[in-house]
């Protein structure tokens, strides 16, 4: 043990950019990607705002040079684009040179096609190719194919909004245990009527721009995105003389065991996840320079997470912000999106502003970072908290 888990490549597509460079530019220029939904025909168009990606499915199919007969869901298309960027960024030429796996995360999977053709499937043979694409593992299989990963460990995690953080965690564990030399980890989720209406029934969607950690927060904006990281072992990094972007230093997963969807009042699960991650990293709370919070801007999450942060960091809460106001809450992909943002923060020594914040929360006195801040960063802690009480924390660092 004690082996390093190096991040050697990243790829991302979100409402604020189609690649890593574009995402970074939007982040430092405080440009959010939130608007009224355009690609989904929903009655709720004026009641919600979303982080939607500009590309149509056809445009992405062309970029990936897929045949007309393909049965890619939007989740698979987004995932394939982001994973390919990560592979390119990691300068991988021969995928078979090292034992390479893929761990992806999704909650929506092929639901976008299922909800579109639900009844058509029974009558229209042209739509039936999408039936096989519904299950959550399908997009992962397709991403593996796009990357040329064969006869290997390829799997999918779905733990709601913490899914991609858990994919990163599993990937890091597999590298440490020597099961794989290289693993692509991340997640992908597209917008769908299913999630829009689902979150609507829970009454946690804001009708305007979301305001994480604001006292008057009204709920979240949904978003769509995909992001992947390439993790490599010390062996590969040395042999290939690879530039390392950052290291996965710590991780933790715990369950709130409180409620099917809501977080406990005092963030028990989130507290445990952060403590576990610090322990794995061998860090004290004071070693953390920046927290990229889950910060969805629901009444429940921000209170519960904020209290958990105070429980772990006491009177010395480091700078923290949520980037959900930029991208919307991208569900299963969120942990990977924010992992890319955490690595970019480390690389550029930058803390992103928590957009749209006006009013201090009454329940505690911690305030997110509100302006772009330059600061020497060694470590970033990222939280991802989900339904089913699922709480995850990943710690990234410059040092091995």
């Amino acid at each position, binding site marked *: 043990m004690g082996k390093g888990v190096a991040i050697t490549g990243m790829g991302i597509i979100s409402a604020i950019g189609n690649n890593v460079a574009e995402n970074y530019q939007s982040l430092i220029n405080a440009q959010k990607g939130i608007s009224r939904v355009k690609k989904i025909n929903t009655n709720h168009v004026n009641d919600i705002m979303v982080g939607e990606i500009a590309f149509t499915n056809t445009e992405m199919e062309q970029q990936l040079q897929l045949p007309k007969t393909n049965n890619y869901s939007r989740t698979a298309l987004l995932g394939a684009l982001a994973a390919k960027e990560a592979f390119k960024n990691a300068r991988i030429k021969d995928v078979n040179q090292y034992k390479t796996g893929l761990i992806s995360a999704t909650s929506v999977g092929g639901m976008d096609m299922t909800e579109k053709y639900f009844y058509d499937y029974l009558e229209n043979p042209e739509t039936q190719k999408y039936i096989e694409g519904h299950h959550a593992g399908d997009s992962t299989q397709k991403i593996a194919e796009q990357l040329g990963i064969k006869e290997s460990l390829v799997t999918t995690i779905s733990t709601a909004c913490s899914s991609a953080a858990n994919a990163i965690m599993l990937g890091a564990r597999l590298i440490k245990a020597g099961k794989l030399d290289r693993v692509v980890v991340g997640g992908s989720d597209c917008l769908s009527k299913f999630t829009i209406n689902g979150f609507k*029934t*829970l*009454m946690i969607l804001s009708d305007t721009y979301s305001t994480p950690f604001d006292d008057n927060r009204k709920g979240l904006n949904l978003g769509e995105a995909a992001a992947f990281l390439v993790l490599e072992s010390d062996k590969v990094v040395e042999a290939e003389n690879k530039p390392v972007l950052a290291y996965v230093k710590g991780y933790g997963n715990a369950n709130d065991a409180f*409620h*099917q*969807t*809501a977080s406990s009042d005092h963030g028990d699960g989130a507290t445990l996840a952060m403590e576990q991650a610090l322990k794995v990293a061998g860090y004290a709370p004071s070693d953390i320079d920046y927290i990229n919070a889950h910060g969805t801007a629901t009444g429940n999450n921000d209170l519960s997470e904020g209290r958990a942060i105070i429980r772990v960091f006491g009177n010395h809460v480091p700078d923290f912000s949520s980037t959900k106001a930029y991208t919307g809450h991208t569900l299963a992909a969120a942990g990977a999106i924010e992992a890319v943002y955490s690595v970019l923060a480390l690389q550029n020594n930058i803390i992103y502003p928590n957009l749209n914040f006006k009013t201090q929360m009454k329940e505690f006195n911690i305030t997110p970072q509100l302006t772009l801040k330059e600061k020497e960063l060694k470590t970033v802690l990222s939280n991802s908290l989900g339904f089913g009480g699922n709480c995850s924390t990943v710690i990234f660092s410059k040092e091995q």
Partner: protein
Amino acid sequence: MDALKQELKENLIEQLNLEDMSPEDIANDDMLFGDGLGLDSIDALELIVMLDKNYGIKLTDPKEGRAIFESINTMAAYISEHRTK
């Protein structure tokens, strides 16, 4: 009002799958949440949909539900005052 209360009890049992209960088991002033009938926040969301569907009452903030759904009495009173269908 009594007919409305009876109707509410029946709908409550049906909507929330309170399988082993009958309307007679629910008193008009029984607490529906917490120590009473034991309903929870997801049930509250289900009841908000029921208000909309059956009585044309739209609540936008789940917090409003807390007082309205305290008991069959409070629900009936609120519905008779605000119903649009």
